[in-house]
């Protein structure tokens, strides 16, 4: 009979690493995900500047955070489905960056105004950022509709990522001067990431436009389909106007010209005409920023939220 491997012996079992800290009584954090939640803003001073409306700041953080969360989810749907392994990894990397931005922004929203966080059963260990991501209905999401429409082909994803990251990079580029130090810090990190997201999408836009007849045709079809959602990225919502006036947020209309110059550069190099398409109307003027979405967001959330909602007191 083989004796039980001695964990303290050099040639011990493969599980030894897990037992390395067994002497730390009651500490289970060596197990995957631990028993404790990671607060992405642990130790960060989240005091809201005196003269800033906390509710407006929180709503603004939800807008930027929901854009990132929903876009991240759509990008992550490519995982194991992309045209090749390198693009699969590229899209997963991009999705992960945006998910990280979303976590910070949702946590910042909750810290600014706890009333935006949905109520959960007493004793639920779900942290605020997760409550915001998994326990809000579609009508409470403030993302632009561009982020939520279903994936099409690869060209569709590259056009969407180009429009999205160009606008977001311009906004975050200004947000680094926010009077809210938390938003300023989140923006400074985000700028570095969006720089290569935009380059990646721009290169593929050019490649597809100048590639084969088929890739050219698909790129134009994707651009035609998504162009009506572009103006919403740069429209001013009253909340954005208010936080911009207070010096904590950015009015997207103020970067519209800068965004358009970048897009024009990509279109010109690619030999692609700007589509002649009107903006997708809202409902009585309400769009994604007001919580008015296409039906695809409800389906996206149903999939994204199902496990968390089935276990509102679950510990992960």
């Amino acid at each position: 009979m083989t004796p039980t491997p001695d964990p303290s012996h050099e040639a011990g079992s493969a599980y030894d690493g897990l037992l390395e800290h067994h002497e730390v009584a009651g500490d289970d954090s060596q197990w995957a995900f631990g028993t404790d939640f990671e607060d992405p803003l642990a130790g960060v001073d989240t005091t809201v500047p005196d003269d800033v409306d906390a509710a407006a700041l929180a709503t603004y953080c939800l807008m930027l955070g929901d854009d990132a969360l929903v876009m991240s989810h759509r990008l992550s749907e490519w995982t194991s489905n992309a045209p090749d392994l390198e693009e699969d990894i590229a899209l997963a990397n991009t999705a992960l960056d945006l998910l990280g931005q979303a976590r910070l922004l949702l946590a910042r929203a909750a810290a600014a105004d706890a009333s935006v966080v949905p109520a959960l059963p007493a004793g639920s260990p779900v942290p605020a950022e997760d409550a915001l991501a998994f326990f809000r209905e579609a009508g409470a999401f403030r993302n632009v509709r561009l982020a939520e429409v279903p994936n099409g082909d690869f060209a569709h994803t590259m056009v969407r990522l180009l429009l999205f990251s160009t606008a977001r990079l311009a906004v975050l580029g200004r947000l680094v001067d926010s009077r809210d130090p938390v938003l300023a810090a989140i923006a400074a990190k985000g700028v570095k990431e969006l720089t290569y997201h935009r380059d990646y999408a721009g290169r593929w836009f050019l490649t597809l436009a100048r590639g084969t007849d088929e890739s050219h045709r698909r790129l134009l079809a994707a651009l035609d389909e998504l162009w009506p959602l572009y103006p919403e990225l740069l429209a001013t919502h009253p909340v954005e106007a208010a936080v911009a006036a207070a010096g904590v947020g950015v009015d997207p209309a103020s970067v519209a010209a800068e965004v358009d110059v970048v897009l024009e550069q990509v279109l010109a190099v690619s030999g692609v005409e700007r589509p002649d398409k009107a903006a997708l109307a809202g409902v009585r003027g309400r769009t994604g920023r007001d919580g008015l979405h296409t039906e695809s967001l409800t389906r996206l959330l149903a999939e994204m939220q199902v496990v968390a909602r089935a276990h509102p007191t679950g510990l992960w």
Partner: protein
Amino acid sequence: MTTTATVAREIAAAVTDPEMPMLTLEDLGVLRDVRADDGAGEQGVVVTITPTYSGCPAMATMRDDLVHRLTDAGFTARVEVSLTPAWSSDWITERGRQALRDHGLSAPGPAPRTGGPVPLTLTPTRRAIDCPRCGSGRVELTSEFGATACKALYRCTACLEPFEHVKEI
């Protein structure tokens, strides 16, 4: 005089990155500060770390590893996150760069300057780097994205081996 924070810093500085274990957190530049935590008794310390990328999934593991090592050494440790200034690959120490090369990874060059409108780059990123295995400069980019957020994939056309390059950010 050896203070609590100095001893704790030495321990924290030796904790390694979970995804690139040849690097200590100090060599990677994510360990920002170790100071006494007055509210947590004589052995109380606060360690400040900063994420490399917004979505870096290794943050929780880094925190747990720091708490373990410091707890083992008799400290009561708390880990805080600092987002600003944002991490830059320029913060990887010379010792860290050597450790990367010793393990077959290509170390980052100087990070691009930040501030002001960011120029669009539609041509592939050009880097003057050498194969960490054979030293040849004949390398080609396979993909700007790799198995972790911080790395790009390259291939050496001299020795034909693929390798990873830690990106400039």
